[in-house]
Every structure is written in C-alpha cells, then in structure tokens.
C-alpha cells in the first residue's frame, strides 16, 4: 500500500502531462469544445441568476402578505374608518382560512414609505405635504394561500370602508405561471446545449484517442496498466471542462458590475444575498464544466478504448 501511494504522484504527473499535451495536440478541436462549454456555462449561470432573483422576489412578496385591502381615506373620518376596520378585522379573524390580519395605520404606512425612500437614498418630500396621503390598510395572511376567495369576498362586501382589494396572491400566481414557462423553456434549452457540449467533448476525446492509437497499442504491449492508458483522456476531458468554466467565470466577473447594478436596482427590496449567490454560481459553473467534460471523456474512452 505504501509503495502504491508513492506511485500515485507519478501516475498523476504522467496523466496530467499527457492530458495537457493532448489538449494542445488537437488545439482547434479542444478550443471549439471549450468555446461551446463556455457558451453553455454562461447560459446556465445567467439562467440560475434570473431564477434566483425572480424566485427570491416572488417568495418575498408572497410571504409578506397575501391579500391587501386599502381603506377609504376620508378627511376627518379617520377614526370612524379605524373603528370600522377593527370590526372588519374581527370578522376576518373568524374566517378559518385566515391566519392573521394586520392593521396598517396611515402613520405606519407613511413611516414605511419614508423608510423605503431612505433606503434608496431618495429625497423625502413628504414633509411638504399638508396631509398624509397614504391610506390605512389591512394585510391579511392566509392559512392556505390558495384559498383567498372568501377573504376577498368579505373585504369587497365591506365597501363602506374598503377602497380597493389587491390580491397579491393572484398577481404572484400570474407571475409564477410566466416564470414557470420561462423555467421550463430555459431548462429545455440548457438540456439541448448540454447535450451538444457532451457530444462535442465525446468527439474531441475520440479524436485524441485516435491520434494516440499507435501509442496506446505500444502501451498495452509493454504492460502499461489500464489506468495509465485511460486516465490521461479523462483528465483531458476534465481540462476542457475546467478551461470552459474558468473562461465562463471570467466573463461573468467582467459582466458582474453592470449586471449587479441592474439586479440591485431591480430587486432592491429583496433579501437576496449576493455573497452566497456568487459562491453558488461559482460552484455550479465549475462543477457542471468539469462534470460534463469528465462524463464526455468517460463515454468516449468506454466506447473507443474497449479492450
């Protein structure tokens, strides 16, 4: 075992050296494989980022509130509206579909608005208004987000206090349908590109095997073990994947500045942690690249290097 372990670095050095030679021996094909790999990985990363953004946005909105009723805002009748709202709240709480009801007063609404402005570093001009323009509202959370009809009905029925009902859930559902279609389409596209990449890697390694056929024959005759014959090609495939991943990550890093500005502006309010997202995308791109390269090489070696 000790002897076997001492032999490992030699085996690794040999295999990696041969993989490197093999990569450059057929440079055009290797670079073509790497380029398609880059294309695929950039697509994958972009898809992942959009998914993460939209997903975080949707779940944030969904979690926050499910049905919102803006209350009538009548000058001088604020207290009456509040009393009516309290009554409505009690009625809503009696509905088994309701989990919680939160009354947002005009003051709280204004405070939230000001906080949002401050977060965006925008000037707060609300002090110049003679009166708080924001309506009070009721935010209703549901036990089962899909059962919002009865709540909406109750709120609509109380039209003496309720100005308008905003069905956040329905809005989210519509968005979810759109993103679902995008997700399916994206996944199919990725799968197709992935298969193309795999096919190109298989072919690249097949050419590498053919280019080395004389060497392979000699290796077998002089008693090289299978590992010495096969692993250089597996490493060559992994190298194509790694090169593709590194280039793809480089491109993403270049695009990261403008991209994150865009994302930041778009998803400003979202609890999107850019740190973990960067880490996830890096791992995803590296693992997919190296994984696809290795898989392609493995398929090739199995089909074209059978004993």
């Amino acid at each position: 075992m000790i002897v076997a372990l001492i032999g490992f670095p030699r085996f690794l050095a040999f295999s990696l050296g041969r993989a490197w030679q093999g990569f450059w021996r057929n440079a055009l094909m290797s670079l073509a494989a790497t380029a398609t790999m880059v294309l695929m990985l950039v697509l994958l990363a972009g898809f992942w980022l959009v998914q993460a953004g939209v997903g975080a946005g949707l779940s944030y909105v969904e979690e926050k509130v499910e049905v919102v009723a803006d209350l009538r805002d009548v000058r001088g009748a604020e207290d009456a509206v509040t009393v009516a709202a309290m009554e409505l709240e009690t009625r809503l709480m009696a509905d088994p579909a309701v989990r919680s009801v939160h009354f947002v007063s005009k003051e709280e609404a204004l405070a939230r608005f000001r906080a949002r402005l401050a977060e965006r570093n925008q000037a707060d001009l609300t002090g110049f208004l003679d009166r708080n323009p924001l309506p009070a509202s009721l935010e209703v959370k549901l036990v089962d987000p899909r059962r919002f009809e009865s709540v909406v009905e109750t709120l609509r029925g109380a039209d003496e206090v309720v100005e308008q009902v905003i069905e956040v859930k329905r809005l989210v559902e519509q968005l979810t349908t759109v993103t679902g279609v995008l997700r399916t389409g994206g996944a199919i596209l990725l799968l197709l590109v992935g298969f193309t990449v795999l096919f190109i890697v298989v072919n690249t390694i097949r050419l590498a095997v053919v280019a080395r056929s004389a060497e392979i024959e000699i290796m077998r005759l002089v008693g090289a073990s299978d590992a010495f014959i096969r692993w250089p090609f597996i490493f060559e495939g992994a190298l194509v994947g790694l090169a593709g991943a590194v280039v793809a990550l480089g491109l993403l890093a270049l695009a990261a500045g403008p991209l994150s500005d865009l994302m930041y502006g778009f998803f400003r309010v979202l609890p999107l942690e850019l740190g973990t997202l960067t880490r996830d995308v890096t791992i995803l791109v590296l693992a997919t690249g190296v994984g696809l390269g290795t898989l392609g090489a493995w398929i090739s070696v199995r089909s074209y290097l059978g004993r």
Partner: protein
Amino acid sequence: MALPFIRRGPRPEPDPPLAGPRPLIELVGVGKVYPNGKAALQDVDLVLGEGEFVFLVGPSGAGKSTLLRLLIRDELPTSGRVLIDGQDVARVPGRGVPRLRRRIGVVFQDFKLLPTRTVHDNVAFALEVTGTPRRAIAPAVDRALSVVGLTGQARQLPSTLSGGELQRTAIARALVHEPRLIMADEPTGNLDPLISWEIIQLLLRINELGVTVLMATHNADVVTALRRRVVALEEGRIVRDEVGGYHRED
C-alpha cells in the same frame, strides 16, 4: 478502470525464483477458434525451457501470430491451457495482464516506434507508462541501449535511423523491463539480409545473457544456418519440433 495505486484483493504472488532448466512456457492441448469459426490453432503442445532459443516457422496463416498473441494474453485459448512460469494466463485477472506483459518483451516486423520521440525516449516510454520512478528510468534505458549498441544514437529521432537501428531500438525497448522472454514476430521481415544477420546476432547475444527467445520467421537461410530448435506450424498444428533447418530434412 482501476487506479493503479488502489490494490484490491490479495497481493499478486512474487515471481518464483529462477531455477535450473524448467519450463518457462507450456502450452497444453491449446486450441484457438476465432469467432468467425476459423480454427487458428488445434491441439498444440509446446514446452519452452528457460534460456532456450526457438524458431517458430510456417507459412502465413499457419497460426504463428495467434500463438504469440496467446502468450501475451492478447487472446485467450478456446481450449487447453497456456502456462507462463507455471501460471495459467487464462486465470490472470484483467488487472494482472500488464504485470504479465512486463515479463515478456515483444518485437515486431514494423518496429512500432513513436516517430516524435528520440531513441532514448522511445525506450524510456515503456518505463514511463508502467510507473517506473523517474530516477530509475535513465540508467535502465542506458543499459538497454548499450546492449543493442545504440548508445551513440540515443538523441536521434527514428526518421534519421536505418532499418537495423530501428529494430535495435525496438529490441532495446523490449529489453528495458528485463524480461525473461523476448518474443519476436518476423523481426527481420523488413530488413535486407546483411542487417537481418545483425539482428539475429543481437538476439543470440541477448539469449546468451539468459533471456529465452522465441522468434517467428520466414527467413529460411537464418533458420537453416543456425541449427537451433525449430517448431513448425501448419494449419494450426505443430508438424515438426526438432533441432534443424527450415525444411524437413528427410
């Protein structure tokens, strides 16, 4: 696709110690029928002692190459047993085959050298791909090259060598693992008579160093002149096995 550094199962048994004249190779009732139905060998019995020099002769298609392929376990016999050093090659597991082949040096008519590597590197290749430590490679290569008399050509590429030098490079490569047996398949097939003699002299000298040599050939002059043991194959059967010339001496 096992990694070489992970050893599964019991350790391979060490080579048995060298003893006096004992069989290095034994073929017992060996038959080989290819999947297409062609019977390449039929009921072949053959024993090669340690240190022998044996010619294998016969017309094309007589089964010479098949016999050589059985010895390096490139093919398995369909009947009978092939023993090397008392070990049944059919029982050698797949991962043991490389180890078996390192004990047998092979030389071919077409040399099978790598055109982009120098003489030295062609010989070193056999050691590199079998995981020999780097510091052990150069001395072993130098030794093999000095045996075949190519020390001066070590840095040359095959394209600059004569046919005889090419074959001597191939022989050096076959020797570099210090095998017990050298198997040569028509080693003089591509060489003119004078150079052929050089190669034969070289193989004889290697034989004198204690290496068993099995040489398949069509070269009747050489076989007849040397008066060594000759095994003649015809249509897959051994038709003659005696000391003498290429043709039956009635």
